[in-house]
Structures are given as C-alpha cells and as structure tokens.
C-alpha cells in the first residue's frame, strides 16, 4: 500500500528552493534552512514569493511530487505538472463515463451521499457534545431528508440542486458549531473570492489545502483531475479534485477550522482586514492552521469500506484508487468515504 508521505509547506517570503543531488534544499537569504531527500515528500506547497529552480521542478515532476503555488493568503495560483503518466486506458474510461450522463450521475450521487452524510456526522457530533439545539436538529433532519431523496437515481442537474440546498442547510447551522462567543467569529453564510470574515478566510484556506491533496491523489492513480462528474468542466478548474474533496470538506476542513476556533488556538486578532473588505489570516495564524492540518493527517482511522487502518492524509488517495477501480469496472459503484 502507498505510504503517507510528508508535505513541505514554504511560507517564508523570498525563500528559494533548489535541487542538490536527490534532495530539496530550502534557502532563505542565502542560508540553507532545510534539506529533504525527495523520496520522503508527497508534495510541496509554496505560499507567496517563493521561487524554485527549474531543475527542482523537473525533479519533482519526475518523482511524482505535486507542486502548487498559492498566494500568500492561500489562493491557488499555479501548479507544476510533469509528463502525464499512468494508464491511458483508465483516463479514456474516465472521459467516456463523463460523457455518459447516467454513469456520471451515479458517481456524482455517491459522492454527494458521502458529502451529506459526513456533514450530518459533524452536526451529530455537535449534538452529542453540546446537547440538543433546535437549529442543529433542524439541519440534521434536513440533511437526512436529502440523503433519503438521493437514494433514487436522478439527473445531474437535480443532484446539483440538492447539493446546493443541502449545503445551505448545513451552513445555516454552522454558527451553532462555533462555541466561542466573539463577534469576530460570527458566521453569516459562506462567502469567498475574497472571504470577508475570519471564519470564511479560514475555511477557504483549508479548502485550498484539501484541493492540493486531492489533486495529487488523483494524479497519483492516473486520473485526470480536470474532468469531473459532479462539477462541470471548466477550463483550468480541477473538477474531479473538487468532486473528490466533497466527501472530506466537513470532516477534514470544517472540523479543523471549528476546533482551532473553539479551542482558541486562533484568536480574533489573528486576521488582517484589507480596504476591499477581504479578510486574511496573519502569518502566525496560517502556520497554526498548517500545523494542525498536518497533524490531523497523521492520525489513523479504519477505512469504513476497505476495513484497513490508514492515516487520514491517505484518504484522498484511497478514494481516488476506489474511483479508479470503479471506472475500470472492478467495482459496481463508487463507494464514498462515510465517516462513522
């Protein structure tokens, strides 16, 4: 089985990454800060003004190390893609299924089942921990209704409609999950591009990290991250990576953000406001979130479908593998990851 490897995050501005032998070397102001053999890495994520030698880019592409460049605030800017590898037959099948609406909507439906079930699990956990709250209970009931509705096959447009409604009910209950009573962390629905409040800034940042991991997981098993089922094709959009991350949004990203706020690891002072209304995290807050994210990925769980112990960081890879197996015809349906 594939091993969960580490990801290198470079947040120091003006850092320069280059290759020395088989290792990645991070230099800050002419001084080497870290040296990592490439085979211990799964990905490199660079924030803001971080540069990289072309030789290291080649080296990463050759060794299947996913490289993403994000803005200082976590907005996706670019990634480096090497020669497309993996099984061309698998990718052909992926495209064929995308063109067959029944097959595509079957996968999308399972993804959505996973997403809603996991969102509901997050609400249920809160109900268990903090007692009955009417708003949470309502949202939980609604999500259960959507799950029942999704038992029937339906065309993709209808699925997207249900997704939107389910997400709206989930986010309507989201403020109840924030136990810190501070005006800075009040949440009035999702907003993005740019996020205009601290909670949304953190969510957006966590989702960007999740996309990076899902994308590299898909590339790792030879699928094209740009042809999705739930998400329509759009130039430059990693639709399949966005599909894959749906199952993990609530579980990995939302819960992480919530616990950082609720445990007061991130404070109202950890954000910068810009003139346009955009809110972004400070350097320190971003590092806290990255650290928590990396730590979370090290935790082990039993995969509900494979019944194998695995690290959380490996979940996107395992789901990508299951999707590939379904596309190849080895599995009748795509089994989404449903948290227990």
């Amino acid at each position, binding site marked *: 089985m594939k091993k969960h490897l580490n990801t290198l995050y*470079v947040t120091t501005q003006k850092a320069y990454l280059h290759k020395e032998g*088989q290792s990645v070397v991070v230099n800050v102001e002419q001084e080497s800060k*870290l*040296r990592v*053999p490439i*085979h*211990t890495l799964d990905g490199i994520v660079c924030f803001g003004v971080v540069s990289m030698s072309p030789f290291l880019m080649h080296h990463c592409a050759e060794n299947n190390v996913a490289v993403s460049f994000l803005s200082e605030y976590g907005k996706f800017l670019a990634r480096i893609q090497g020669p497309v590898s993996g099984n061309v037959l698998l990718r052909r099948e992926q495209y064929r299924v995308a063109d067959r609406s029944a097959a595509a909507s079957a996968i999308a439906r399972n993804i959505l089942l996973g997403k809603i079930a996991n969102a509901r699990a997050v609400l249920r956990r809160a109900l268990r921990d903090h007692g009955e709250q009417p708003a949470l209970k309502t949202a939980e009931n609604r999500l259960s209704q959507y799950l029942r509705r999704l038992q029937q096959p339906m065309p993709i447009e209808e699925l997207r409609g249900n997704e939107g409604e389910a997400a709206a009910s989930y986010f309507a209950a989201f403020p109840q999950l924030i136990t810190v009573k501070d005006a800075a962390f009040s949440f009035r629905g999702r907003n993005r591009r740019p996020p205009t409040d601290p909670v949304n800034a953190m969510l957006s940042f966590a989702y960007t990290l999740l996309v990076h991991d899902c994308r590299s997981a898909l590339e790792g098993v030879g699928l094209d991250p740009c042809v999705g089922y739930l998400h329509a094709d759009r130039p430059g959009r990693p639709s399949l990576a966005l599909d894959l991350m749906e199952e993990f949004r609530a579980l990995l990203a939302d819960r992480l953000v919530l616990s950082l706020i609720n445990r007061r690891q991130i404070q109202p002072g950890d954000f910068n406001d810009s003139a346009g209304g955009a809110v972004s995290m400070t350097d320190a807050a971003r590092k806290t979130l990255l650290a928590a994210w990396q730590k979370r990925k090290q935790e082990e769980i039993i995969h509900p479908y494979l019944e194998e112990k695995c690290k959380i960081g490996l979940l996107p890879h395992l789901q990508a593998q299951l999707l590939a197996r379904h596309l190849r015809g080895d599995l009748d349906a795509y089994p989404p990851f449903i948290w227990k």
Partner: protein
Amino acid sequence: MLVLVSYDVSTISKPGRRRLARIAKTCLNYGQRVQNSVFECLVDSAQWTALRTELLRLYNPDEDSLRFYFLGKNWEQKLEHHGTKDTPNLENDLLII
C-alpha cells in the same frame, strides 16, 4: 524503515578525500546528516538496496569502513537526541518553513 549509515574514510590520500566526498553526497541523496559521518536514511527496501549498492561500490575495503544499523519501522522509540543539531523527523514532523 530507518537505516543509520556511518563511515570512516581514510583521507590521507587524494583519492581518499574524493571517496569521502562521494560517499557523503550519496548519503545526502537518501537521508539526513545527523552528525559528521553519520546519516539517518528513511528508505524503503528498494531504495535501501540502491543506496547500499552505491556505497559498496564507492568505498575502499582496504582503507575505509562502513557500518549500517537497521532501526526498522518503529525507529522513533529507539532514538534519543540531546544537545544541538537536532534534525527533523521527515516522516511525522511538520515541514513548514
């Protein structure tokens, strides 16, 4: 698994110094220098075979010595560090610069 590689290379002659540099470079490709002439290499069995073969090709059995310690998968419990030059655990530590 973690393999600890340590070596003594005779540097009296010029070819010896060259061997030293080459062996050090090879070790750096696979692991981290934890002390002078001591490397910790986090490798799977294929990578280890490659590293071992390369080292055995480079060293001179009449003048140098190589020692490999196999610390296995649960090496974290078998290791303590005191003092300066602590190196990150590449498997689990946060790599945030």
